[in-house]
């Protein structure tokens, strides 16, 4: 069912009739960095709190030198059985690692990076060398309610025709669609 759900999302998006993924996704409701407190955002080593996209907002810089920023992901809560995807708006140089020690290259210009939180309950950004610098402007999550998959209303006729054509072709061919679900997105993917 999940595979059909993912396929439907992609096809609907391609057909211009609206993605059910977007309709069933809930973005985080605050600039999480601005709500940071010592209990929810822990910094170690070279990591430090600085002003963010404006002088009255908050950001973080990690490096140069080993340092770590950990943000409590408890707020995302996995409500309703959804899966949360965490994005970090960052730039700098070098690389950082997450809690599972997966390596991420830091973009030289600000860009959204999809970071894997895993089951740690913390979003962890860590530098371990003396060269890397990571500037963090924002952190957001999006909860995707997978149980709520449905074909969006209001789509164009051409969209439905295309959807039916592709589904018919798949049935004729006897294939089982196996598109990856959103929560399996690879770390390092950019926010569209």
């Amino acid at each position, binding site marked *: 069912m999940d595979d059909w759900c993912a396929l439907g999302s992609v096809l609907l998006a391609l057909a211009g009739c609206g993605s059910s993924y977007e309709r069933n996704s809930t973005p985080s409701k605050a600039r999480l960095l601005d709500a940071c407190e010592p209990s929810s955002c822990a910094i170690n080593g070279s990591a430090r709190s600085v*002003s963010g*996209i*404006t002088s*009255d907002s908050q950001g973080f*810089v990690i490096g140069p030198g080993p340092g770590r920023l950990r943000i409590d992901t408890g707020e995302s809560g996995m409500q309703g059985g959804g899966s949360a995807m965490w994005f970090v708006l960052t730039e700098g140089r070098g690389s950082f690692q997450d809690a599972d020690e997966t390596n991420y290259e830091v973009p030289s210009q600000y860009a959204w990076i999809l970071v894997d939180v895993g089951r740690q309950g913390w979003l962890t950004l860590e530098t371990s060398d003396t060269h890397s610098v990571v500037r963090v402007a924002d952190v957001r999550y999006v909860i995707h309610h997978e149980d709520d998959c449905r074909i969006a209303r209001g789509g164009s006729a051409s969209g439905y025709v295309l959807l039916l054509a592709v589904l018919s072709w798949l049935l004729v061919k006897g294939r089982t669609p196996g598109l990856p679900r959103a929560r399996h997105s690879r770390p390092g993917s950019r926010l569209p």
Partner: protein
Amino acid sequence: MVPELLLALAPLGSGEERGAGAMDLGSQRRWIARTAMGIQSIADSDHQRLLELEGYGHYRALWQGSFDRQLSGPCFVGVFGLVALREDTPNPWGPELSERIWGGGLQIPLHVFVESGILSIVPRVGFTSGVLSLYDEGASSGALLLGGELVGVQSLTTATPTVGLGVALGIYYAPVPPPSEIGKSYDLGGAYLIVVGEIHG
């Protein structure tokens, strides 16, 4: 040749006015007061691109005012002031971004009086200051302002002082240092299109 050119540039509206304008040229200096409002596209900068990644837009509302006094012929000198504002809530969600910009300075315009109005080229230099904030506690930063605008105004009355309405296309640059520690270079300026109200005598 030059006096003839000045006579050709100076007249207003009807033939009588044109003659009066020519006679006034040496004895009475003209003045032009303008007010304008419109929309400004924020100048491209690294910090503006960062704000756009956060979902914020790239337009400001702009108000301007100016007063010019004739030096000789089409050459005027004047002062101007401007206010630019943006209140922007990002897509999909986030705190409202507030930006307030004030500016002012000197301008040395060329105003060419044509049959039905005035065409102007207005170079400007001045100083501008702006505050960018998410929670109404942003710090201000200031910069030198350089720019100019092209203005076309249609006269609506023939009596003096004359009222006119027109449009202006302009741009100014005012690069400032990064507005925050993780910020990037920013510009308080940009290109703009405004509706101009004018009175001149």
